[in-house]
């Protein structure tokens, strides 16, 4: 007698699964994290109340959430776009940092009125981000070298560069601290008058819409999607793998660059050695949650923003280390990838007398 686990590949995913997955994974993550909270003597429901409900119902909470969401949206797009071509931009964090460095350098050294300086900072930050991913992109497109490892290595190089820059070329003249000078007002992202929301949100939403439009309405979007779905068939169709991989990755790099400069310009105000936001890594679960569309990426980014702000709240009010949000983040990814498995396979359990493997083999070819 043997317990047989039978896996049959699914030909299509039931609708409830396709739409319900993000919801289920988040719920599952919340439940498991609840245990962690409980173990510290905290009532999970009370904690979640502060984390989610309060954050979303106070104007303070909402504003902070939006501020947090801006770089997350950019970073999410930075991973989402290459993912459409089945490429993993794990190094978004590095491109983010480089974008921050270059954008800040421009903001500190160029004198222009705000309506010219800010765009210039963003453009240079974006280009810097794209340049930072260019080498890994080239290596992947031309030689097939795994972009996961190469982009990751570039993250660490970027972090060291940041350290160097704030202690050297960009270090504030009067100060002994490892940080740059403060960005002038002309280089700072303002808040939207009256409502008080960060203006970066507007740019982020615009970029989401632009990404959506590119993927769904343009030739390039079609090629990227097709290449990601089946690169063999795409090449048979005459599409250039080299061109598409380079474009997809470098566009992602630019987005990450935007994330970096928007954070410095809109929140930090200056470049510090301690600038280690981690948005580039959080971008991975954001992109996975929002896999099916740019607007879902937006929603996922907002969710994580709430998560992080809520995390700080419960740290202040309940003394719970905000690292619980990292745990939740990890759990969301964990349940997402497990769910991925169940989406692709139907699992059947049965008791078997004799384990006779049957052959769902492919009769085409040499029979």
């Amino acid at each position, binding site marked *: 007698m043997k317990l047989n686990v039978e896996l049959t590949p699914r*030909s*299509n995913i039931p609708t409830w699964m396709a739409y319900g997955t993000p919801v289920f994974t988040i719920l599952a993550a919340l439940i498991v994290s609840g245990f962690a909270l409980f173990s510290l003597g905290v009532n999970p429901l009370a904690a979640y109340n502060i984390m989610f409900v309060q954050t979303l119902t106070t104007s303070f909470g909402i504003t902070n959430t939006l501020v947090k969401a801006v770089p997350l949206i950019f970073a999410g797009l930075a991973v989402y776009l290459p993912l459409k071509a089945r490429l993993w931009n794990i190094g978004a964090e590095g491109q983010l940092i480089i974008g921050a460095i270059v954008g800040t350098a421009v903001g500190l050294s160029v004198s222009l009125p705000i309506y010219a300086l800010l765009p210039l900072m963003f453009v240079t930050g974006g280009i810097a981000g794209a340049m930072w991913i260019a080498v890994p992109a080239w290596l992947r497109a031309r030689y097939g070298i795994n972009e996961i490892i190469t982009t990751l290595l570039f993250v660490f190089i970027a972090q060291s560069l940041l350290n160097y820059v704030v202690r050297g070329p960009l270090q504030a003249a009067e100060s002994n601290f490892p940080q740059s000078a403060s960005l002038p007002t002309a280089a700072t992202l303002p808040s939207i008058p009256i409502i008080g929301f960060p203006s970066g949100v507007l740019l982020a939403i615009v970029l989401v819409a632009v990404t959506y439009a590119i993927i769904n*309405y*343009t*030739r*390039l*979007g*079609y*090629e990227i*999607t*097709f290449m990601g*779905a*089946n690169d*063999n*068939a*795409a*090449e*048979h*169709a*005459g599409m*250039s793998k080299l061109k598409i991989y380079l474009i997809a990755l470098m566009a992602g790099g630019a987005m990450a660059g935007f994330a970096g400069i928007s954070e410095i310009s809109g929140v930090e105000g200056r470049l510090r050695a301690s600038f280690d936001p981690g948005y580039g890594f959080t971008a991975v679960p954001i992109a996975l949650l929002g896999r099916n569309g740019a607007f879902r990426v937006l929603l996922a980014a907002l969710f994580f923003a709430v998560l992080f702000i809520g995390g700080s709240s419960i740290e202040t009010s309940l003394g719970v280390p905000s690292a619980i949000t990292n745990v939740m983040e990890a759990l969301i990814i964990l349940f997402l990838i497990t769910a991925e498995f169940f989406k692709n396979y139907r699992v059947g359990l049965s008791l078997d007398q004799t*384990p*006779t*493997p*049957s*052959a*769902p*083999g*492919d*009769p*085409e*070819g*040499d*029979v």
Partner: protein
Amino acid sequence: MSDDKFVRMENITKTFPGVVANDSVSMSVKKGEIHGLLGENGAGKSTLMKILYGLYSADEGDIWLDNNRLEMDSPQDAIDAGIGMVHQHFKLIPRLSVSKNIILGKREPIAAFKDNSGSESGVLHSLTSNNIVQGLASRFTLGLDTPEKQIQQLSDNYGFNIDVTVPVWELGVGERQRVEILKALYRDVDLLILDEPTAVLTPTQAERLFETLKTLTDEGLTVIIITHKLDEIKEVTDRVTVLRDGRDIGTVETSEQTSDDLARMMVGREVLFNVDKDDVSVGETVLNVSSLRTTNDRGIEAVSGVDMSIRSGEIVGLAGVSGNGQKELAESLVGVRETLGGSIEITGDDVTNESPNAFINNGVSFVPEDRHRDGCAGTLSIMHNAVMKRYADSEFSDGFKLNYEAMEEYADTLVEEFDVRGIKNVREINAGELSGGNLQKLILAREMLREPDLLVANQPTRGVDVGAIEFIRERLVAQRKSGTGVLLLSEDLDELFDLSDRILTIYQGEIVHETTPEEADRQRISLEMNGGKEEVKQPTQIAADGGRSGF
């Protein structure tokens, strides 16, 4: 009665979804003989041997080896029973040495712990023969020295000329095959199965192989060799079993058959379909190929100097057994495979070694052999797949933007005209959800409605239901009428005879024969496809039942 039934496969039946691969096949092999297994592609040879080797399990039927009934669930069971197989695609790990590849999985401990039950006695022996100690030793030591010497000895005995200490990546193809044979010999097999062994060998290497096989059988080994090459059957086998369409046609003494006889046994099939073909006047040359040479994915030359031309309004059929270069030829004619030498001209333009895009823009359409891997993106919608080669056309794209309404309409047109069934909405259903026949019709629709100058169709009706087959064939003929030049690659000779205006035969990368359906001799083509030469017919002793009775 039992001396010639060392290996017996009785009434083996194996079905896959949609196809009966083996239909009550029986076959018996004498001890010490070299037994050939002959048949066209799709006849069921490979399936039958995979069952014998434990990779598949038969739905019905029994296997007997030396009068023992075998129950095999895995290749390991087959090895334990004394059956070894040399696959067409070698199962070797290049980084490891020959000897390591051969001992892999046997878990032999170092000599000190080897369970040599001899006259050993005493504390040391009882210590080392203890089960737990044996278990640990087999895992945590590596018994290489003794086996390596044994393997080298074995190799030298058979004249293999291999240094078993070198890593496999240093060896050439012929040597690697010998390593595969050594693998089986080292495991002391009684029966050795070889699957298309000369597919990757030069004639000289093939000769060496045959000598080796004869030496092995002289020493008592039994060999089954799967092949489609008639000259090999004639050269090296004692008897041969012929399969056709999943059934066994009979087993005959090789010496008593001519290649013609064997070809006839392989082929004799009724013509199932009759397609009306009008006379079409042939026009300009759409394809001109001269001295084309390409390599296959493994770097071995697959197309060795092909000349051919196709004109507008004709269907040129290419007959050949899979693995003789036709796939590589097709791929180079559509720009997906680089060429080593020679030239390709499409409607007069030289497109040799240009990108696939250039070929597409020059009016070349392609229906690939592997529709899921090369022909469509299964996770994308019908609509996406319908415009796969036309999305850049002004009809569908305006600058950067895509006109999805136009694309949807186009997809609907394709679906309707080519009777792709079961689609309510071209945007919602994914290509991967379609059945084989429907997907193929969609691909054909996409490739044909572009109004190409040249259409290359590689096995367009393979794995497709009967209704779709008929439809596809009619469409090919219709395309011909509208002026496209068609290159039809097919393993189905009936199909080629039905549809083609001219039939070329490819063997080992060269075009060996050209004829028309009216003049062609079905058996002659089969002969050429399998490398046989036309022989003078002699009166032969073939029983009316094809040689089945008599053992």
